[in-house]
């Protein structure tokens, strides 16, 4: 079985473009950035200022994408750049791709126009057929297909080993990484790019999430403290990709190894009473044999949606009796980005391990404690607002070979 290592990190969020621009999280210099207007009264974390031209040079390509796809293609480019293989077509022809993505953004104005007029139309169906035929734009259709994020990454960056897209909210993001790691571990492929992207200011997704009460209204707060307000996520614009390789492949080309992947578990409970708690306990029990003594970082993908956020947190509290743990809920800092959340948290964990640093607490709740020394092992958790419970262990590349 091959060791799987992280050799490239690409991250774009509300805090900055590129993983380096997230260094301020180590010393508490970075504060969360909010946009309270775009989808008021539901705040979001907007995308940091970005020049897409730098990694998507053709304007024609940019025009064919929606904002989430642009963010993703850019973040994928950053991961390749960080791994030293951007533009290396020979390498990229043998690089495999797994993208986690949802739908692209709808043309909300068209929907609103049709919905406003349809109830007074003489014949509802014919009115709908005619207005949709007139108003839909062909380019928009392509930008709405989830697999076109992957398609655009192939077109813009030349990644062509293979291309798969996973759909299905948070677990899709985790499973993209888990599946790529399994392919590398088995020796089926040597190098793969996996990740996802999400653009936050989207009324179509706000409607989907809001109908289930899964977004937070009003003043932002730490993901751990939203329970009394009914819980809810603050969506964030995020693009995150990891370049993964077998250790041999990475060492042969002299790549910088940021982190080493340990065990990964991805489960699926139906969220009946008590199921998440049982699932979480089971996941930790399976993870335990792989955990070393000493400090353990936990980078949580908790969305803030309840009751699952509280259930995930409770599983950490039980762990605390046996391990010195340092919990960080990135939802507080960069917001929640559905499919892109697990990749973003793996990107941040890889950065911390590479820099031999750890993040200052993201809130003042006391749940997140200062780490006296940077952990050399970090578990990234992914408990979706609707489905999916999983976690992945990352280790420092400086330790013994796993």
């Amino acid at each position, binding site marked *: 079985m091959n060791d799987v290592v992280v050799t490239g990190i690409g991250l774009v969020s509300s805090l900055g473009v590129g993983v380096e621009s997230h260094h301020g999280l180590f010393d508490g210099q970075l504060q969360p950035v909010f946009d309270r207007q775009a989808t*008021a*009264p539901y705040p979001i974390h907007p995308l940091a200022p970005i020049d897409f031209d730098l990694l998507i040079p053709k304007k024609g390509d940019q025009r064919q994408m929606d904002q989430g796809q642009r963010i993703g293609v850019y973040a994928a480019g950053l991961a390749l750049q960080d791994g030293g293989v951007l533009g290396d077509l020979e390498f990229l022809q043998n690089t495999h791709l797994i993208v986690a993505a*949802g*739908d692209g953004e709808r043309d*909300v104005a068209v*929907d*609103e126009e049709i*919905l*406003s007029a*349809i*109830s007074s139309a003489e014949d509802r*169906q*014919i009115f709908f*057929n*005619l207005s*949709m*035929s007139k108003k*839909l734009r*062909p380019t928009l259709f*392509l930008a709405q*297909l*989830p*697999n*076109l994020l*992957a*398609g*655009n990454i*192939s*077109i813009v960056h030349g990644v*062509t*080993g*293979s*291309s*798969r897209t*996973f*759909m*299905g909210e948070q*677990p*899709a993001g*985790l*499973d993209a990484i888990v*599946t790529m790691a*399994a*392919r590398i571990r*088995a020796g089926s492929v040597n190098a793969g790019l996996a990740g996802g992207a999400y653009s936050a200011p989207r*009324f*179509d997704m706000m*409607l*989907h999430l*809001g*109908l*289930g*009460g899964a977004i937070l*209204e009003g003043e932002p707060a730490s993901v751990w403290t939203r329970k009394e307000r009914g819980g809810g996520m603050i969506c964030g614009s995020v693009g995150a990709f990891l370049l993964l390789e077998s250790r041999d492949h990475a060492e042969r080309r002299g790549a910088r190894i940021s982190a080493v992947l340990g065990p990964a578990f*991805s*489960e*699926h409970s*139906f969220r009946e009473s008590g199921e998440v708690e049982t699932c979480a306990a089971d996941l930790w029990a399976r993870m335990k044999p792989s955990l070393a003594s000493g400090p353990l970082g936990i980078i949580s993908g908790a969305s803030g949606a309840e009751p699952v956020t509280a259930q995930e947190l409770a599983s950490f509290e039980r762990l605390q009796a046996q391990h010195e743990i340092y919990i960080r809920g990135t939802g507080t800092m960069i917001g929640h980005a559905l499919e892109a959340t697990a990749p973003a948290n793996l990107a941040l964990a890889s950065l911390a391990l590479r820099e031999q640093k750890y993040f200052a607490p993201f809130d003042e709740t006391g749940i997140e404690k200062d780490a006296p020394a940077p952990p050399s092992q970090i578990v990234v958790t992914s408990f979706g607002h*609707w*489905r999916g419970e999983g976690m992945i262990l990352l280790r420092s590349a400086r330790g013994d070979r796993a």
Partner: protein
Amino acid sequence: MNTCDRKGRPLVAVTGLGIVTSLGRSKAENWAKLTSGQSGVGFIKRFTTEGLKAHIAGSIDFMLPAGFNSQELSYALAEDAAREALDEAGMNGANAFPGPLFIAVPPAEISWRTREDLAATLPAGSPVTYAAMIQKNFGKRRDILDAFSMGRVGDLIAQRFGTRGSPISISTACASGATAVQMGVDAIRFGLTNAALAIGTDGSINVESVIRFSLLSALSMHEDPPQEASRPFSHKRDGFVMAEGAAALVLENFDTARARGAEILGIVAGCGERADTFHRTRSNPDGSAIVGAINNALEDAGMGPDEIDYINAHGTSTPENDKMEALACMAVFGERMKALPISSNKSMIGHTLTAAGAVEAVISLLTIRHGVLPPTINYREPDPAIPFDVVPNIARAQKVNRVMSNSFGFGGQNVSLIFQSPP
């Protein structure tokens, strides 16, 4: 001790198959109609097509009472196909399938009917905005969040059949069903499981999806009679016909399948994939990505091109696809293409989009089993640029041991699978 393939990996057996298309439910019904050259395409009755450019499809209205949305139909189709496959594999008893689920599903979106219901909650006459719909219904419609989550169909199938772990919902456009099969094969070869359930399903024919494909000028306009619209490889082909359907395959480690006494229906011998960099809806004119996928499948199977007996084509009936597929086949199989039979199931069932790769995988295995090649119907005027044996119009009795099935998707995602008769 595993029985291994030519590359020393655990051999992957198929022990159960299920299918539902516009031709009908079950393998028996589909096979009877496929081998008698019948078409499932007809005029759309689900909604009025007045004002639309396209009026025909291989839609399925025999599964659910009228009023269903795409998610509900995609689930019903997948459930039906999976139940048939699991029955055949002898695994449908305990609803505890001993492995993961890989399911190709169409992307989910809140249905228009639901949007209109939400709009109706606002005061009459006021402009309808998303912001107003959210505020008025905030937290009150958890059922809608559930129903239109991307993972919904996979979640329901996982619940229904008790598959293990996180269900993987796949989209590689029109190659999705083939990717689902490939992921199941990977999981068994990697030793992660002894069994996997691979499904492709698509029940997404609605007004908006029809308009979207019309806008790409991808659909056939030869609408009358509808049964003759899909004419893969023929000179006057002008587009594909949208269709619905689902297919399921029970994949197992050959040895554990045999140990439990399961009947082996066939072997998945090879899977190849390659992505294209050329264009969002067109293949590179040199055919390199399609050639790459086919060659990778052969390489993965440890086979030479001469070992393939028959090709189940992607064959969508668009001018572009069939031309490119022909070019790629010529590049790989050379002069042999003049004699190697290749036919398109889509001539009869239309293009089941997300499901197509799985539907055609099932039909490929039925082809091996029955020793009959389903025809390419509506083949009246050959395309001089494609001088192939397309099994024109009439099924042909011919024993085949190794079948290649091609799937090519928008966004340049190409997959080729090779199936083999049981050893």
